[in-house]
């Protein structure tokens, strides 16, 4: 307790310097929290992978149809098949790219992670133009239950030649780890019935569940082999393989992590510098402490607390700031920027605390050496 009061008094000896130092620690940890939060969020995607799930695409554009579905479902090793079509276009301006997953037959079984209740599935089946959007998606485009959501799809024309598809938002559902940037999901029938006759029955993907998750790749190869010499060959990938491709965020994440580390090194350098100055300016005081019986260890511990206190408090404030920014991010970002939201989970907090303690220990190393060598008589003899 005595120690703490002394530490507190020392910290406020030069208030401007302490405040700036504290600010830099806070900002260092804000950066740390945001970057590691991104990493945690992207990590959740690979954790949520369904190892038995396969995506089957047409090998050639626009050449997969519902007619192929029974053949897939009868294959050995396949337990469920669902058909999915996506409408891709833009909202208001081409920069705002959007896609809506139109759930065809069988999707409810192969995509149980889609957080729709039975009642909501029934609503979707009843309302052709209806969609459910996830929370992130709703915030990004300013949607709520009852909103109308018109999107322009130059590549998906209606039978009357129009390229505007208008949807009605039936409700907002929670986000899922598999889709870190949010999703919108609609009824395949709307797409299918509104298209020209020649386009009906055309879908973008089959989602297939393998009976045995260890044989997923074999089942994928089997599907492709089956259709290889047909009129519409396919290309199947396991969900695991596909998620390794998507994002392309690997490089960006590596750069971000280096930047967070750079920020932490700077925090360490600043803390070390501040502590060095503070110990040098107080050498007479420290000598007095030694003279009245404080051991070297006690004084070093005292300086360590002086370093660790702003670091730990700064860590908590910084991470809270990061969490606050993360919560506000979907609202702050322009509609065209589609980014996952950083997730400040316990692992991120733990890494922050470790980093704070490490910074304090590194910063104390040089002053501790100085204190240990401090000769009481010489220091006290100084005016």
């Amino acid at each position, binding site marked *: 307790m005595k120690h703490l009061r002394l530490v507190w008094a020392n910290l406020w000896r*030069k208030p*401007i*310097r302490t405040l*700036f*130092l504290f*600010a*830099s*620690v806070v*900002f*260092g940890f*804000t*950066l740390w929290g945001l970057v590691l939060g991104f990493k945690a969020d992207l990590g959740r995607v690979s954790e949520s992978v369904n190892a038995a799930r396969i995506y089957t695409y047409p*090998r*050639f*554009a626009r*050449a997969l149809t519902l007619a192929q579905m029974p053949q897939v479902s009868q294959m050995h090793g396949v337990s469920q098949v669902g058909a999915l079509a996506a409408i891709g276009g*833009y909202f208001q301006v*081409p*920069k705002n*790219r959007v896609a809506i997953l139109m759930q065809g037959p069988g999707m409810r079984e192969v995509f149980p992670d889609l957080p729709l209740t039975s009642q909501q599935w029934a609503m979707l089946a009843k309302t052709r133009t209806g969609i459910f959007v996830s929370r992130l998606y709703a915030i990004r485009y300013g949607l709520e239950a009852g909103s109308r959501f018109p999107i322009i799809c*130059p*590549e998906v024309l209606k039978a009357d030649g129009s*390229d505007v598809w208008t949807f009605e938002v039936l409700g907002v559902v929670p986000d899922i780890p598999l889709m870190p940037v949010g999703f919108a999901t609609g009824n395949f029938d709307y797409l299918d019935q509104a298209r020209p006759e020649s386009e009906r029955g055309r879908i973008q993907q089959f989602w297939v569940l393998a009976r045995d998750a260890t044989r997923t790749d074999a089942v994928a190869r089997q599907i492709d082999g089956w259709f290889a010499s047909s009129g519409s*060959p396919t*290309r199947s*990938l396991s969900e695991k*393989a*596909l998620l*390794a*491709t998507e*994002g*392309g*965020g*690997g*490089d*960006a994440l590596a*750069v971000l992590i*280096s*930047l967070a580390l*750079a*920020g932490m*090194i*700077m*925090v360490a*350098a*600043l803390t070390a*510098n*501040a502590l060095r*100055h503070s110990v040098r300016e107080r050498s007479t005081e420290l000598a007095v402490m030694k003279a009245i019986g404080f051991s070297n260890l006690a004084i070093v511990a005292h300086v360590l607390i002086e370093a660790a206190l702003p670091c730990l408090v700064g860590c908590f404030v910084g991470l809270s700031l990061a969490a606050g920014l993360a919560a506000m991010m979907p609202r702050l*970002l*322009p509609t*065209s*920027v*589609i*980014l996952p939201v950083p997730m400040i989970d316990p692992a991120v907090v733990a890494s922050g605390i470790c980093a704070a303690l490490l910074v304090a220990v590194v910063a104390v190393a040089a002053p501790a050496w100085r204190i240990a060598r401090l000769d009481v008589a010489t220091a006290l003899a100084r005016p």
Partner: protein
Amino acid sequence: MHPLRQIRIVGVLSLRTLHTRIRSSWVIVAALTVVSVVLLSALAVREGIILAYLGVGHADRAIITSMGSVREVGSAIPGSSLGPILDAPGIRKAPDGGPLAEAETYEFYGPLTQRNQDTGATGIRGIGPKGLQISPEIRIAEGRYLRSGTREVLAGVLARQRFAGTELGDRITLLDGGQWTVVGHFSTGTFLDGEFIVDPQVMSSALRRTTYNTVLVSLKSSESLEDLKNALTTNPALSVTVERQSDFWKRQFDNLPVAPLILDYVVSLLLAAGAVSGILHTMHSTVGARAREIAILRTVGFGGYPVAVAIVCEAMLFAGIGAVIGTAIDWLWLNEYPMMAAYGVFRIRVTPHLLGVALGWALATALVGAIVPAVQEARLEVVDALGRV
């Protein structure tokens, strides 16, 4: 004494004693190094994307896409439209007398295996011999050009750096899932370097397509665009958009969902606030170390402000060094790095312009950090200055 002369004398004096304070000033250099590294990393990525995208477009070429399409991927021009397009006015003549224009195919393809075993995706373009005449910047760096009608592929120099199976003679799985032989590497200095080039006819038949994505045209002169546009857009049989190639790529860049730079500026600003803390500490101790010198100067009649100016300049000097080191680190670390983005591969570029940005930030940060100790010194009474010694 004239104030400017006073500043000069104090400046010379400061420079002569600078070496005694280098050790205590390292933290300014280190802090501004970090700020510059962070600030420039995002700016360099953006610089790379701008140079890569805007480099593709030329003002003396036109690109024809299907009406309403936003990107090359969504554009489809039926083979039957090619005749009227190629006959249109305003197109430069090739040496063989025909129009210097070519229908090109494009497909965004993945997953491809990267050299680090991750997967990635990039564009595959069908560009024929005429396309090479229209775009002479596509140079074969190694190997040879495609023989038409064969399943051969050219890899861009960046695609070669990123993707596995792209050395000369390698066979790589593309498009229809078949094997394509790499016969050459090409370089353009633009976005195309991250892509692959194949024969457009072979690509069309491999993908069983009856449409092309775009038609690229070499214009007679950059003013002939209007003639071409009038001829094609008034033809009721065609449903196309005619655009200058440079405008098209500018539009592609504008439509990129690039995270706004504001995030980078905010983060850099936060770190710069940290740097201010380092500068404050250091300049306070600098003033302490020079107390005797400052007291003597003040006693012999020097004003407070020349000393203040010298303090600010010293902080700026060290901050500037930090900015140069930070830029150099980014240059060594990131420059020319083939970055994989969701829409292809491009080079990160650290340009001289960015050094200027880093210096600007560093000097501004130093000014903010040094101004408090400097003004305190300037306001100090002569008696107090002497009292500190």
